[in-house]
Structures are given as structure tokens and as C-alpha cells.
């Protein structure tokens, strides 16, 4: 369970401070480009590399991250670099700054390496992060097809059209 309010800026600063290579995906990626709808979790697509796994685990530990507890008999576990070496399923953590989903392969758009060239460099007034384009966010949500993804799509498509018109 997260201990405090969702604070994506704090999470992003922490990841950057720990030299984690990642791309922001999901709704926060859309928010960074101006989409007006809020969310309560941060999704990231980290680079698959042992050094990056260590940096990511360090960053998450500094946020007091715990695996999201899916079962009544499952004890929360701290983030460990082994979580991010050769992993294939999204790992969700509750941290002191809210929920973060660490995604190895994003539905419809693939891995960090698949997306890094098309990612947008977003200046957060003191540090920069790589951000998936709104097109990529839409493609990923279309492919994922979960109820929460499908609900967002009309608004995201309208926002993409607005961006193209400007």
C-alpha cells in the first residue's frame, strides 16, 4: 500500500537521479504532452540491461518500494535487481510516492529499444525524461485493451487530433 499521495514528479526525479534509462509510457506520458486527464500510477519502460536493473532497483528501494500484494498470503517484498533481469511480466510497486508499473514489453509498442528512437525528450525544468508519443500511448492502449485503457481512448484520440491541428 502506498504511504503517501501519488507524486509522479518525485518518482521521475528519483529515477533520473539514479541514472535509470527508461521511457515514460501510459497516461503520464500523455499528461507530459498536455493531456488533461489525471491518473494515479506511473508506467515506465526501462532499458533491458543488468546495470540498468541495478539502478532501477536502487531507485525503487530509495522510494521504499514494495511489490503490490496480489494474494492474501503473499508478503510484500522489496524491489531487487533480479526482478528486472530477463523478466517478462509487468511488475507493480507501491512506493512512498505512489504506484509505479515497471513494464518489460509494452503491448503494441514493444521494448525500450523499440521505442527509444521515437521517444520525445521532455524537459522538466531541471532534468529531462524520455516520453512515449501520444500515438504510441494510443497504440499501446489499443493493444492492451483492458477496460481502463479502452475508457481513455476517445479522449486520447481527440487530444492527438488537437495536437496535429496546432
Amino acid at each position, binding site marked *: *500500500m*502506498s504511504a*503517501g*499521495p*501519488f*507524486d*509522479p*514528479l*518525485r518518482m*521521475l526525479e528519483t529515477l533520473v537521479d539514479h541514472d535509470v534509462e527508461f521511457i515514460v509510457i501510459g497516461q*503520464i506520458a500523455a*499528461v*507530459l*504532452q*498536455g493531456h*488533461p486527464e*489525471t*491518473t*494515479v*500510477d506511473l508506467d515506465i519502460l526501462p532499458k533491458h540491461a543488468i546495470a540498468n536493473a541495478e539502478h532501477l532497483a536502487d531507485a525503487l528501494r530509495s522510494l521504499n518500494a514494495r511489490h*503490490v500484494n*496480489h494474494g492474501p498470503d503473499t508478503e510484500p517484498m522489496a524491489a531487487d535487481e533480479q526482478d528486472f533481469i530477463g523478466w517478462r511480466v509487468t511488475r*507493480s510497486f*507501491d512506493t512512498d510516492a*505512489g*504506484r509505479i508499473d515497471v513494464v518489460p514489453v509494452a503491448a503494441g509498442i514493444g521494448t525500450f529499444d523499440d521505442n527509444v528512437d521515437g521517444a520525445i525528450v*521532455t*524537459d*522538466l*525544468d531541471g532534468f529531462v525524461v524520455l516520453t512515449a508519443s501520444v500515438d504510441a500511448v494510443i497504440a499501446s492502449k489499443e493493444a492492451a485493451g*483492458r*477496460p*481502463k485503457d479502452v475508457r481513455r481512448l476517445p479522449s486520447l484520440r481527440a487530444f492527438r487530433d488537437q495536437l496535429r491541428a496546432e
Partner: protein
Amino acid sequence: MSSAAAVIRGARLRAGLSVRELARRAGTSHATLSRYERGSVQPAFATVERIVRACGLELRVHLDEPDTSDADLATSFLALTPRQRLESVANVDRLRRRAG
């Protein structure tokens, strides 16, 4: 509309077939196929497979973990105080302004 009804109707429309033509190809009657599509009769799984094949498509089924992401997020958000919930929304706004 039941899931079987949606699958059959979706397959037929994707194949561009009329109800009558699909019924002929699948070896059933127009009336029976209409009942399947309306959901008033539940066909056996093997029947759905056969009708989908008659549309020139293949029905693939896979098992997956239930999607609990909405419930998980709601649980986390409910654990916050009302003030913290407002702060969460404000923090997203702060991030948006910082990027803009």
C-alpha cells in the same frame, strides 16, 4: 448480447456474409443462426468453432490472469486520506505544468 452471440455476429460481419449465406455454409438454418446471434439460444462451444470456421476464420482461446489493475489502483487510492487524494491529482497537474 452473450459472448457467443458477439463472436458469431462479429465473425459473420468480418467475413461479409449474410445470415442466410453463413447458415448455409455452416450447415444450420437461418432461424437457428439468428437465435445464436441474438443470444436467445446458447450454442455449444464446438458449434461456435464450426460457425467461425465457416466464416473463413479461426477461433483462438487462451487462458489469462484476470485483470485486477483497476481494483488494485482503487485499493491504493482508497488507502489515502481525502486530502492525499486531492494532493495526488494536484501532483499530476504540477507535472503537466512543469513539462509545458
